[in-house]
């Protein structure tokens, strides 16, 4: 199968039922997406599949042949962080940080499709992602900062 991750194309042969999460982590070495539950309930594995946020643990290799995947490390760089990442740093959202790759990917996807979401839309979209440290107030604050700063294209 063929898959492009963070702009780099890969040819790889794996069984069709291997979830994208472990294809990324263990076969291709992209360690930004995390394993938290394996059943699509925590969101730590969230990546962008053709631009939209998905739970990488719930998408199989067979479903991503030819796909374009972006992980947290492809979203922005230390020199040029994505506006959502910059907002996350400015608001100091992370505590343990393990869920934050997924939170940021979810937030970036939300703002890419809906640049000015209401509070209810933020709640609905971001409640797919669990933060055991309960950084939720700062996740809200960082989203509002990213929205206010604009330039989310």
């Amino acid at each position, binding site marked *: 199968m063929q898959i492009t991750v963070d702009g780099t194309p890969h040819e790889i042969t794996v*069984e069709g039922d*291997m*979830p994208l*999460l*472990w294809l990324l*982590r*263990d*076969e291709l*070495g992209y*360690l*930004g997406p*995390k*394993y*938290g*539950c*394996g*059943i699509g*309930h*925590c969101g*730590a594995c969230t990546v962008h599949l053709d631009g939209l946020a998905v739970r990488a643990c719930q998408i199989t290799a067979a479903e991503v042949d030819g796909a374009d995947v972006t*992980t*947290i*490390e492809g*979203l*922005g*760089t*230390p020199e040029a*962080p994505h506006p959502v*990442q910059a907002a*996350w*740093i400015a608001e*100091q*959202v*992370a*505590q*343990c*940080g*393990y*869920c*934050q*790759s997924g939170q*940021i990917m979810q937030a970036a996807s939300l703002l890419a499709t809906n640049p000015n979401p209401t509070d209810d839309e*933020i*709640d*609905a979209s*971001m*409640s797919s*992602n*669990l*933060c*055991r*440290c*309960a*950084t*939720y*107030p*700062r*996740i*809200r604050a960082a989203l509002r900062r990213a929205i206010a700063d604009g330039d989310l294209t």
Partner: protein
Amino acid sequence: MTGPSRRTVLIGTLAAGAGIVFGVAAYRRGPANPLLRGLGPDKAAITPHVLLDADGVTLITPRADVGQGATSIQAHLLAEELDVDPATVRTAPGPASGAYYNSKAAVEWMPVAASGDGIVARGAMGISDVAGRALNLHLTGGSTTVPDAYDRLRAAGASARETIKAAAASRLGLSVDDLRTENGQVIAPGATLGYAELIPDLAGIEVVQDVPLRDPSQWRRLGRAHLRTDMADKSLGRFRYGSDMVLPDMIHATPVTNPTRGAGAGTLETTAARAMRGVIDIVPISDGVAVLADNDWRAMKAARAIVADWGGAGPTDAQMAAAHDAALDNDDFRDSRLADIGDVTTATGQAFTADYGVPYLSHAPLEPANATVLYTPDRTQVWTATQAPLFLLGTLAGITGQDKAQIEINALPAGGSFGHRFEDEWVRQATEIAMQRPGQPVRLTQSREQDMTHGFYRPMARARGRGTTEAGRVRSLDLSIAAQSVVSSQLSRARMPAVGPDVTIVAAAWDAPYVLPDRRVTGYRVPSLVPVSSWRSVGASFNGFFLETLMDELIAKAGADPVEERLRLLEEPRARRVLEEVADMASWNGPDGRFGVALTFAFGVPVAQIAEVRNTAGGIVIDNLWIAADLGRVLDPVNIDAQLSGAALFGIGHAIGAEITFPEGTPHQTNFHTYQSLRLWQAPTVTTRALGLGGDIRGAGEPGLPAAAPALGNAVFAATGQRLRQMPFNRSVAFA
């Protein structure tokens, strides 16, 4: 109050029972600097906390960072005196060593009031320091990182700075008075030397000791907002955890073990699993097997294909409930009565009684338990997150038969802990596997299901509250609490005896700061049912709820105002202050159908919280949570806000919906679909006010938790008239 005969100092009995005798001489000798072991001439280790090499400065920050910001604050304490930029120098946790003993950890095991600052409390602090050093308590917990590090790390930074200046003065032929330091450099008239340039000169320089510390008014970093050192990497996805550990030729492992510990491996059908793609082997480990594969998912998939007959189960919910009911208010099970003032049995007034309960809980940090081990007959290397590296070192020496000097523990940051990384079962499992694969690195990752069903749980607890009210006032309070002993469960795993009462059973209840003519708090120890452990704020996680719900019920019966009556019962000035502050923050004007208040005093930190709720058609909505706390001094206001808020929401989330139950004798909840956790849409607006009223500095990781659930429960009472006496609350009321 508490008589000396009751003041069994647990750490003393613990030490004697373990055959460890320590004295002043051992204490004064001081631990050696572990960084000096094998140190090349191209490096210098000035104190156990400052390492110089060709690449510059590395700050050794030995307390585990499990998400609470421990690394960053340790680095800032060192940097404030060392004059380096914490954002640009490196940090490392350092080796497992007694040099990194925790001088404050043992005090949490002693019957010393959280609010105590008198002679007895000071004495206990001193004993804790001696015990910490003599028992090699290199551990993280009890919100002790900042209290322990505050003076020690600043002193280490100052000592290193002055030693570096002495080396520079020697090289330049100047007086140290002609030198100053800035951003990792010694600045002399006409010359600037990077710290690392002075490594050759440092060899002949004695470490300068007892350097006076800078006055806080001179601080350039501490005490004001600063960026946590891990924040950028965690936001860019570049931060690496134990589960990201990759070594050449590494194999992946996942365990499948009996949900009842110590009950053996049962009968396991592994034929189908062995034949699955990527499976390298299935090997025996304690209480089960581990699947070894070339990928985490293939290992976990094969693990699910193993058919297990474990040959029985542990106690069921009904048996657990019966064990708690049997212990509560039964003198045969009495563990402590650390508060017994006046005579509650003859207190006058209108009598009130209510029963309360909380369930077992899982730590469930989002990063599942993991460890990487490379074993050879001569040497064992371990990479894992741990809050107790020296205990782990002893455990691994026992498993491998190697000397501690042959074992290297590389402490990694954790994707959460909440007390979980105090345990080490997964490291033992990885080591058992690695010993069967000498020379090959093994990374073990527990599946979420294995992690949750093989927990070291927050104990369930039952309580009976009694009290009397008279003339519009609360007159007496009598609280009985029954729970398993966390300390005895933990020490049994460390193969150490536990003697004396377990203060955690009554923590934050017996030492609550209320002054009443008749007050009694009694702890009852429930015999061991399942392994239990320290879960964020430990006993205070349930006692804050029991005591502050009971207090609120008594105040309501008396017809008094919940804030005013609490203030009437409080003399302790810091407790009064935080309650007054939070009332101000919330513009308190009585419960008003929306507001609930609670006050707790745990880990030396008085915390008052007010929750505001709305009863809607869809259920209870939590609109606001106000938190006021006194930390003694505020070093990092941004992180303290995060810790107070995070701890409170962690408390609220579990209070609303989380429980581990054992309907058939094994844990029913296996993952986050059944073990409910707070989600963003449920989170209220949180406003914190962190005070620094002077006195001893305190940690912020745990104290924010205990008052949150009772504040919420008391607000729900204000809104609905219904009292929430049992967790999880959503068994009694719906939350939107």
